[in-house]
């Protein structure tokens, strides 16, 4: 039979994984920002369609990372509220 303490402990472990994931997303965001800035500086003035497509894809990646982070924050809030109410 599981106890409240065991359920809370499992939620805590899951939240630790989420925090590690968030750290990796932040690191990805930092690298992506740097890559976008470097690319913008390198190809400034280019009208090549592949350059535009690459920059668009990188912008989408940044949006997806932001949306991912927002979802993890919501999940953490829900899980912590639930654990506190057990």
């Amino acid at each position: 039979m599981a106890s409240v303490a065991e359920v809370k402990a499992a939620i805590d472990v899951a939240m630790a994984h989420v925090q590690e994931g968030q750290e990796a997303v932040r690191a990805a965001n930092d690298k992506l920002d740097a890559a976008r800035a470097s690319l913008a500086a390198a190809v400034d003035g280019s009208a090549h369609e592949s350059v535009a497509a690459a920059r668009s894809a990188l912008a989408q990646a940044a949006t997806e990372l932001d949306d991912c982070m927002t979802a993890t924050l919501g999940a953490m809030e829900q899980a912590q509220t639930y654990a506190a109410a057990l």
Partner: protein
Amino acid sequence: MSLLHALADRVVTVRGALPVAEVGVASGRLREATALLAATLEASSAVSAAPLLASAASHLDAACGALGRAGDELDRYLAAVGVAPSAAPMVTSGSCPWAARIDVLTGSVGAARPSVDDRLTVDAVLVSAVRAAGRDRLALRASLLVAPPAVGWALAARTAGLVGVAAPDRVRAGALSRLPGLLPGLPAADALVRQALRLPGPAVSAHPADAGAVGVVLVSVVLALTGALPESLVG
């Protein structure tokens, strides 16, 4: 160095600095958390943390795809201006860093790939990959390439909890005898195996796909030592 080569170098540097590994690590962590939360809170309808985490992981899948497309477009740009990157691996289809890395690990860069099956779960890929690891390199490659990238990235975390049921030294010995044949492109095999088995050894920073592929081989060795069937890994 010409101005054009200098420009190409800058673009190649950007191409190599895309945060594919970080996204892979994040995906693995979130899927681990999702599985744990789902198992813990299965009976509750009062909390939707697990679906939210699954949604977060799907955003990472999309980010991974976007990074792959960006890399492809940069390669096309370099080719169009006449300065193809010499170090870029040749792939026959797709742009997924997961698949590209599996090609490198299995020594099959440039070979045709099977289609990705988006319906596959982590457990389904685990079972088929572990079974394939008991056969040969090409079977292992195929079983890993049909996995959706997000599922592939999650293999490291999924296998980490399955290797502790046999003596680490025996698992290591078994893995080191099989890895050269199964993953000939794997660098620092012994260090990765030691890390996965929590044995003393040098710290190693590996591509996230490496840890997943090594994890599959380790689990196959564990099953060989214990006599268990791949199907026993799930359910």
